[in-house]
């Protein structure tokens, strides 16, 4: 019952967010005139080719990052496993930045899929690395997982710094996106591309909802219940790397969505992945749609990088989580 209420309110909230995002922005739409005269050519261009792909992308990335958070948390059996925190996002960003700065040396023209492929390769390598370091006989050492994440974040940060240092002015401008995350300058083409990658991985992870539930009881128990833990781990790593890297490769690093959203959904609707996965996708989509809306209108006509905004929201939230843990829930 509660799940149904939460689900439908999230659907309504998301739809309203999408509608608001279409209406508000640097170019204001007056509903009365639109009603009377219809959209002008310029208005419809802004709506269909700038605002709509942007809001669709925000929703997809939000859903993708939240679901990647759920998947990694079930893999590591820990609520702190978040793509940003354990270094997966920054590794994927390093892959993308490598292509931005050095890609021209290998290919005549650097295309979006080069960056996505590299981001994916780096994303999956980082998940595998952290998993190998943090897991002993099916048990994840949380301290090791987080420390490995800290190390990866520091290392990728330094390497990105090196690349920034050798980048020219034009490259520097595109680099800024990866550092802070932004939904500006999106076209329908990238939206299709990301949509396809996300669609595949979201469906794939939904397919894994039962082994994810079994994994709540541990790797050995999941095996006793007939699931192959080794295969499951690789599937989750591949699919969540695909989610994180396809979003990072187009909008840069956006942290904390994968931490905040699953945590809240788990608190209100429980840890069963059959509800956790779809509700997290809905809530993540809503969160980023609204965050993007505020990022655009807060300092209009300028724009706040959404990665910064999420860090401003997520940092305090993370501290609250830690304090709650210290009090023993």
């Amino acid at each position, binding site marked *: 019952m509660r799940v149904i209420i939460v689900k439908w309110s999230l659907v309504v909230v998301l739809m309203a967010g999408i509608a608001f995002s279409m209406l508000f922005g640097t170019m204001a739409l007056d509903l009365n005139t639109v009603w009377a005269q219809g959209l002008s050519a310029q208005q419809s261009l802004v709506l269909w080719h700038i605002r709509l792909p942007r809001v669709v992308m925000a929703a997809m990335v939000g859903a993708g990052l939240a679901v990647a958070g759920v998947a990694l948390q*079930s893999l590591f*059996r*820990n*609520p702190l496993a978040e793509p940003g925190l354990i270094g997966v996002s920054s590794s994927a960003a390093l892959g993308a930045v490598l292509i931005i700065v050095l890609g021209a040396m290998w290919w005549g023209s650097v295309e979006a899929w080069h960056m996505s492929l590299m981001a994916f390769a780096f994303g999956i390598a980082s998940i595998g690395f952290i998993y190998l370091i943090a897991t002993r006989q099916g048990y994840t050492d949380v301290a090791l997982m987080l420390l490995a994440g800290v190390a990866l974040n520091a290392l990728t940060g330094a390497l990105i710094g090196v690349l920034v240092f050798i980048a020219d002015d034009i490259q520097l401008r595109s680099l800024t996106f990866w550092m802070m995350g932004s939904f500006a300058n999106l076209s329908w083409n990238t939206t299709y591309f990301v949509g396809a990658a996300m669609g595949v991985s979201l469906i794939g992870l939904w397919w894994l909802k*039962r082994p994810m*539930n*079994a*994994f*709540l*009881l*541990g790797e*050995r*128990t999941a*095996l*006793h*219940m*007939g*699931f*192959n833990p080794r295969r499951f781990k690789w599937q989750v790593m591949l699919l969540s790397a695909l989610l994180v890297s396809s979003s990072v490769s187009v909008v840069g690093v956006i942290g904390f969505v994968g931490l905040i959203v699953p945590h809240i959904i*788990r608190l209100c609707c*429980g*840890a*069963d992945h059959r509800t956790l996965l779809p509700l997290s996708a809905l809530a993540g989509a809503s969160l980023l749609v609204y965050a993007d809306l505020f990022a655009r209108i807060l300092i209009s006509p300028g724009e706040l990088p959404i990665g910064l905004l999420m860090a401003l929201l997520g940092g305090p939230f993370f501290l609250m989580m830690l304090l709650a843990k210290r009090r023993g829930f």
Partner: protein
Amino acid sequence: MAVFLDTADSLSTDAQAIELNAVGFCVASHALLRGVNVRFLPGQISVILGQNGAGKTTLLRLLAKEILPSDGRIMWAGRDLTHHSLSSLALDRGVLEQTVDVAFSLTVEQVVSLGAEVGADVGANFALHVDTKARLVARVEAALTACDLQYLRQRDVLTLSGGEQKRTQLARVLAQIWPENDQQPNAFAGKWLFLDEWTAGLDLKHQLCLGTQMQGWVKKGLGIVMSLHDLNYAAQLAHTCVLLKKGEVLQAGTLAETFKLPLLNEALDAVLRIEKDPITQKPWVLPGL
């Protein structure tokens, strides 16, 4: 030399037996089990006894196909265990580990449902295993009742006491293999339970109540292999025993064959005294002088 546990059973149950032939298991050239020849029969409770580190858990993990033997092989119902898929095994056997730690909040009922759902859509023949919702609920209820958990069903497992958590996990394992018509005389035929120190942490009431129920399920064809530390409870429950010492089988056989003073003293490295329970006529083991 092979030590077999087939005592008074017909050939038909033999075909369903689990047979270990010269099974060994090594970790980094350190042998945890060596040359184990044992046969477990359905319709019996087999108890594995031994000191800490004698290999009881390793033996149970081999039976569950959680690990594969380094030497020898395990025959399960006439076929090599490696040829049974994990998903088909999940329908035939439940495994209770010594400890299960749940990662996130789930209610008792949700945990038990996870077990009941195992049979719901796994297996090669999909149509055979599609359970209706009502059947799932019935399995959950049967398992909750067997473990006396109805009054705890909405509790968060993370807030339960150790014994309650154990019962919850046992209920999940039972729900996994619970037969459709549990009243039939052979309802549990072909099903197995592997229990690793299931009594640890349980209060006396629940130990006895579950032990009594186990004896009933065994009569309906269930095979149970368990490790225990309580010798007297082992003597009450066991049809057959396996005495393990440092990874090797010291003795395996019926209660009468294994509950002998020198054997027990050696297996457990303790000085014991065996009396006879005047009522049940079963052996009664006490620390000796």
